[in-house]
């Protein structure tokens, strides 16, 4: 029983660290080309109808931390904040909606 619990813990801890690594480090190397939708909008000609999000001036807008000049650090910290926030909100939500064991 203890082994199973340990196993599970190991799985979640390593999964979480992989996730942190992807958002915090690998994200810097992501392609900055426009994505599929942007590219299509540009090619067809309606890219100009896009408006900035009302939150476009937010402190984390566009996956960068306002005030951090170093780009690698800026996207990495933004990614880590996103992972922590998504992890907290989603895990909290799933624990609330889950079936209660009886």
């Amino acid at each position, binding site marked *: 029983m203890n082994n199973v619990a340990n*196993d*599970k813990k190991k*799985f*979640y801890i390593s*999964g*979480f660290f*992989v*996730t*942190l690594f*992807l*958002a915090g480090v*690998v*994200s810097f*190397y*992501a*392609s*900055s*080309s*426009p*994505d*599929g*939708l942007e*590219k*299509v*909008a540009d*090619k*067809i*000609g*309606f890219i100009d*109808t*896009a*408006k*900035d*999000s*009302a*939150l*476009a001036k*937010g402190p*984390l*807008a*566009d*996956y960068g931390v306002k005030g951090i000049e170093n780009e690698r650090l800026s996207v990495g910290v933004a*990614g880590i*904040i*996103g*992972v922590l*926030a*998504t*992890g907290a*909100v*989603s*895990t*909290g*939500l*799933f*624990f609330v*909606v*889950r*079936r209660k*064991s009886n």
Partner: protein
Amino acid sequence: MHIPDGFIDIPTSTAFAVLSSAGVALSLKGAKSSLDEKTAPLAGLTATFIFAVQMLNFPVAAGTSGHLLGGALAAVLVGPYAASLALTVVLLMQGLLFADGGLTAIGLNVFNMSIIGVWVGYFAFNLAKRALPKKKASIAIAALIGGFISVPAAAIGFVIEYAIGGTATFSVSAVASAMIGTHVLIGIGEGLITFFAVSAVMASRSDLVYGYKKEVNSLETRSV
């Protein structure tokens, strides 16, 4: 794939926000039967992983990139209802914290990625699983197929929204063929990432994988 504000008019965006809210409400109900103490943390990790991997745009064709949507991946790992919720949390975080995807477009994006992407991906996964040999290894291959199909399906969601309420007047068929063509390519990347992620979980904790264990204990079924 994240629609910014302005592409689709406000009435259409609002209508889709209503539709998406209904989808989220249904998912909240449905997720109850598929999530328990054991799988709730996996659902949280899945959402978090999808957030991270959505940051990792990969190049597809000249000057175009794509990233994982994750709908099929989440559906295979935690079931379609919890998957819809996971994707919705990711989209809300992206829209609210990172200004990725418009605020008025949030219902459109949830509809395309959290609902169409998840359910079409899940449906394709199930069809493929039925067609493949009844082996453990088939799960990741079926997931690859589900992932591949889910991306052009979500792109078609955008085309429908554009057809109903696009603010530009370019022909729907031009938008449709460009969207589908590009997203078939992105779907290949989606399929591969989905394959590797599902394989990794299957290798270490196959007992947690919804799309696999459903087979094993098919006692608990549609109680929604």
